[in-house]
């Protein structure tokens, strides 16, 4: 039989409690966590050395919206302006190494398919691929020197999400839920909004809580009347009996508790039923975007069939963030294979593929930035815009051709962030002249995760969870905060 997890929660015991208090979380869920943790930490102290007391850092943000581009966005076509690449269009890549791509075809260098221009006050270079996002350039901070360990989709996506290339590790959202608890009493801490064309490869493993307790796993919100699975009784009969059944359960449990059998597990279970009942109200209320103004709906592109699907999800993300959901993850792109592709995996033709994908998300993402900004939400919210890896500056074609497609590039690519605690309108790091490899401040996903955690006020080396012999971290044994982009 299973018991409670004694050792695990102890590592964070007090610090989490402080964070929880710091955020002024009230309500039953938070109390339950504190109850269980204080009990468990005492149990654990005896047999294992207690780690040092973590020091909470000053948090800049409380929540994040993560836009995750499945398949690999071409940085040289979007946020990484490389004039030298344009100049050397049609020339060969001069190198004595074999580039570690996926398909192994090394064509000639290829210039971007979109024109770059300086944007806003900051003059940040953004290409015409994202004309709407370009107009919000002063709000974003671009990291141009990302690198990845894997040029293979699913390991790369797992890596970006969880710091490891394998199934079974908790994702960023789960770690934040674990580390900070939930700001909301009646919504999950980690919500996932997958692309309507399908979940990413690896499916639910991408938002699994791994070895962290199940409460930290991502909860998928669907469209429709029942956004969360099993939110309502499946039949009309069940729905009409629901109130009385809940009353019955509560009475039975109360009598059980009064009989002397009560303990914190029972109290937590009783609270969970109260919370479930509240979720039945709060989830549909949050998911109902009809109440938004026409102006807002237009802003997010809900009237444009090309981007309405992503627009709805961006708007829902803002509503979830407003209600205290800790981490909201949106996927742009479904499964990798297939034709035409339903992701950013532009092996065949960047212009066609990225062109079509960008139209789906450009306006909604820009709207999310602008809307959060004008509402002040961006002050304590982080918006993350990432992908699996970049694409090669050379074409994926025969050696004497600058074909229209690009292969995977793990050596250098871009992502951006926006929100509290960041210097906006700046870039960080750089790739080489042609945009192949990160050369200035090369950064890893561990660095990115360390930076995100830092913005949440967490020292990434101290957010740990014991699992099978190791105090696991989101950043494994690596990670350097990108200090230069912190405000």
């Amino acid at each position: 039989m299973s018991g409670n997890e004694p050792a695990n929660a102890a590592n964070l015991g007090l610090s989490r409690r402080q964070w929880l208090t710091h955020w002024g979380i009230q309500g039953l869920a938070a109390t339950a966590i504190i109850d269980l943790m204080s009990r468990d930490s005492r149990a654990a102290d005896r047999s294992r050395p207690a780690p040092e007391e973590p020091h909470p850092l000053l948090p800049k943000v409380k929540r994040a919206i993560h836009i995750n581009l499945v398949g690999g966005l071409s940085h040289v076509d979007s946020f990484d302006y490389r004039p030298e690449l344009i100049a050397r269009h049609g020339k060969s890549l001069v190198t004595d190494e074999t580039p570690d791509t996926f398909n192994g075809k090394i064509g000639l260098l290829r210039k971007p398919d979109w024109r770059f221009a300086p944007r806003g006050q900051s003059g940040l270079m953004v290409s015409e691929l994202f004309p709407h996002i370009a107009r919000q350039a002063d709000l974003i901070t671009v990291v141009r020197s990302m690198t990845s360990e894997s040029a293979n989709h699913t390991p790369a996506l797992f890596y970006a999400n969880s710091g490891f290339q394998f199934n079974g590790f908790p994702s960023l959202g789960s770690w934040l839920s674990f580390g900070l608890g939930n700001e909301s009493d009646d919504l999950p801490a980690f919500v996932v909004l997958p692309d309507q064309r399908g979940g990413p490869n690896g499916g639910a493993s991408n938002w699994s809580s791994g070895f962290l307790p199940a409460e930290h796993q991502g909860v998928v919100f669907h469209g429709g009347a029942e956004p969360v699975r099993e939110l309502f009784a499946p039949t009309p009969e069940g729905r009409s009996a629901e109130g009385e059944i809940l009353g019955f359960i509560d009475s039975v449990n109360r009598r059980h508790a009064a009989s002397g059998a009560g303990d914190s597990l029972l109290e937590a279970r009783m609270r969970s039923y109260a919370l479930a009942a509240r979720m039945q109200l709060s989830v549909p209320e949050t998911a109902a975007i009809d109440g938004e103004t026409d102006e807002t709906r237009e802003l997010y592109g809900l009237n444009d069939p090309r981007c309405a699907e992503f627009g709805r999800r961006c708007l829902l993300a803002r509503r979830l963030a407003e209600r205290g959901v800790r981490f909201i993850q949106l996927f742009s792109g479904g499964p990798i294979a297939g034709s035409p592709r339903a992701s950013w995996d532009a092996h065949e033709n960047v212009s066609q593929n990225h062109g079509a994908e960008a139209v789906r998300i450009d306006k909604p993402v820009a709207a999310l930035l602008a809307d959060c900004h004008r509402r002040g939400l961006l002050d304590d919210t982080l918006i993350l815009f990432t992908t699996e890896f970049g694409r090669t500056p050379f074409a994926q074609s025969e050696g004497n051709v600058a074909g229209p497609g690009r292969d995977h590039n793990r050596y250098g690519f871009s992502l951006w962030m926006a929100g509290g605690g960041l210097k906006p309108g700046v870039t960080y790091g750089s790739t080489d002249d042609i945009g192949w490899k990160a050369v200035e401040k090369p950064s890893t996903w561990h660095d990115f995760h360390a930076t995100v955690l830092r913005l949440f006020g967490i020292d990434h080396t101290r957010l740990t969870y014991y699992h099978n012999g190791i105090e696991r971290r989101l950043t494994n044994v690596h990670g350097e905060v990108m200090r230069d982009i912190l405000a």
Partner: protein
Amino acid sequence: MASLRLILKSVVYIVVLAFGMVPAAGQDQGPVLAGKAESLIVARCIRCHAGDEAKGGLDLSTRIAALKGGKNGPSFAPANSEDSLMWQRVADDEMPPKSPLPDDEKRILAAWIDSGAAWPDQPIDPFRRSTARSAGYDWWSFRPVRSVFPEIADTKTPGANPVDTFVDRELARNDLKPNPRSRPRDLIRRLSFDLTGLPPSPELVRAFEADPSQAHYLRIVDTMLASPRFGERWARHWLDVVRYGESTGFERNEPNFTIWPYRDWVIKAINDDMPFDRFARMQIAGDLENPGQEGAAASAFLVAGVHNTVIGVSRRMRLLARQDELEETIGTLGQAFLGLTVQCARCHDHKFDPISSREYYGMIAAIDGVQHGERVFENLDAQVRRADLESRFESVSARIAALEARARASAPVAESRRPEPKRKDLPVPYAMWSFDNGPEDEAGNLHGQLVGGARIESGALVLDGVSAWFRTPTLKKYLGIKTFEAWVMTDDLDQRGGGVISLQSNDGGIFDAIVFGEQETRRWMAGSDGFSRTASFRGQEETEAKTRPVHVAIVWDKDGVVSAYRDGMPYGTPYKTVPAKFPLNDTHLAIGLRHLPAGGNRMFRGRVLRAAVYDRALKPAEIERSAARESGFVSPEELAARLGPEAARQHGELRRQRQGLAEELARVVAAPKPKIYAVQANAQPEKMRVHVRGDINEFGPEVAPAGLKALGASSDWGLTPDAPDRDRRTRLAAWITSKDNPAFPRVIVNRLWHHHFGTGIVETPNDFGFNGGRPSHPELLDFLARKLIDEGYRLKPIHRLIVTSEAYMRSSDPNPVNSATDAAGRFLWRHAPSRLEGEAIRDAMLAISGTANPAMGGPGFVDVSVTPNNGTTYYEPIDSDDQELQRRTVYRFSPRGGRSTLLDTFDCPDSATTSPRRNVTTTPLQALSLLHGDFTVRMARETARRIEAERLPGVEEQLARAWSLILQRSPDSVEAEMSRKLLERHGLWAVCLGLFNANEFVVVP
């Protein structure tokens, strides 16, 4: 700083002088001092300053290396501490970093250097001793298992369960008052869920309440241990440990429908109480030691983890994927059987446990023959049956042949030929050879040429299977879409790969052919270059072509669809491929040869009595009509006429018998063969080399397969780096299960304890290393480990010992006084209550509702929809009352990321990594799942239906029945009244659903 050093040194001298130990002169003191210094180096320095990655290049394991020093020069000057870098850094508190040496140790170091710095003869092993930050070879879990237990002899209560002797001692030491025994209902509930994963029947609870004696309890324990449900329950615990899942994970996450034999093997092994050492050996090397299905099934342990099937083309990615795979396997193996995280030593020596990186590579060398794969086995029953049918078939055929020979003797075969059917009914061939008169094409002008000894005899082309074949001139026509047909007899049903008719490029590089027995024995296939257009028709095995001519036809249709016919009837099922691209005006047809060059298994041995080629795809009806014309042999009617009535009757009877046998044989042959996902051994793996810092491109020295020094049994297996897989894995299995390995028995008895009490004696069942827990009752752990060895590694006696202890039987009631010192109950003053696992909740509902399907074993039931979507696979939960879906959860098809809200929210692991213990969470989503899940609501309704069908006298009895089925107790008057109200408003199902959601249902006392 220098002055400080001087002061310290002068202190040393003063001390030394004061005690009369002058280092330079004190030869007698040398060994003592050297011993102390060695201990100091081992405890304080050597973890960083030894091995391939010694910090600063300084290796302190030998005197020579230390003298040579690191990048800052020699570490010491003999007999002169003042000039020794080592002393300077230590005296300045720079070394060891962050934790400077206490003064007394500093003095020892200085004195020792001044005395000449004697080193031990052997290099100092950095792992020799445990330190404040890491475990060494002397770590508690590497010490031998004790074999003498004075505690047992000293006990004041004779006949007491030894478990209690150890537990009570700790309780007394900690001043804790143990709870009394549990109430009978609570105890039986606990025992039943613990041993069988199911609730006790109300009748069993009542019987035990009536007679709660120890003898009665023992009888119940023995019944449950002997129940098949025990194996189902405890197999689940083991499946968690071995990260058993039924899809590949990663990008594709394809379902694995053939790994379930492993799960069945585990259940059976546990039910049969297979000795645990054998249980382990079978999983590590079962496929080698027990070839056959059982060994293969057991070996799936090694390949049950996630497995990346999409790797990319680069060599780096392939190597990396392989190294990742090996790490995954050795990590699971080390944790499962040794309680050690061996995988942490892949990039560097283990930071906390005494495992060097080199040892890691020795361990993965031991499993480098392991590859993932699916193995196909002969169905043994079917084999016996088939042999019997074949021999009867042969004997009947021989009798028919004897009769026919007599008839043939009475008239020449050629004359007895039946007239051809009318030509207008038959398709017009592009080329056709009847071999009645010679090699001429009777439809066109592709007159053939006899090659390599081919001859025409009695209206048939005779092929010797060695060199004989028949070829046409180069074709003028491009035969993309086409049909080949032949009436053919084989000399030998076991020949492999001969071509009957082939269209090939003139160099033989591209071809489409009718082939026999090439990829599949005794089957007709469409052969092609590199099997590029070849797939199994899944047709029946050929049994007749040796005794009579059969008609075989293959159609290559547009869009690459290939279909086959035998005797005019469809042969298996068509498949789709990509049409061939033949060179223009550079092809010819061949008979008797698969493709050029002639020779080898490409040659067909037998007779072709007629062959035809069509430049279009014949329709099924055309093929049937064409097949109906006979070749070469006397028709049955004519035979009958010549045989006379009695022999003709006999002949007809024999032919009917033969037909019946053939049909039955076809059925037996078509019976599916068992497929088992298992180790596909690479018999001769390459030599393993260390990857320095885990870097795939950095190769270090070759390593031989070997064990870990830390564990008592000899880590040197006497193997060389090029040892075959068989030696590697059998030695690994022997080493792990060796009686000298203390970890092996300790780890498994701790797992049993963990599941019986909710927390192990060591609370980290997979990790007995430095980062793991320390045993709460170390002597008890050793006692149980020793007991396991004494019991011949059988686990049931250990289970029995544990569940019959007072510690196990204690009530779970709270006690604030005890909680103040031991809230977690680690000293077992109470039995901790436990939340049921998701599987137990589901199984209990099925049992209570009376809808459980008790069928054991076989492929898992699938309660998810499996949707392949462009290279990945989605799994969505479904619920139905299909009988299959009412089986126990251990038989559930369990893909990774395969969602089941009930199991997910109740903390069932996703089997991506080994899960030695389950989390226990309490969330609103859990409440929603138990309230609204299709399954739980259906179970509530089924339970109500079951009770209503029992025709109890009234509502009160129905409600009492619901309470006793679900909670194994009667409601009190208030509860009965609450239940009655709910029943009256909404029906009995609402009461059942409410009770399934009650805390008392999901938490076992």
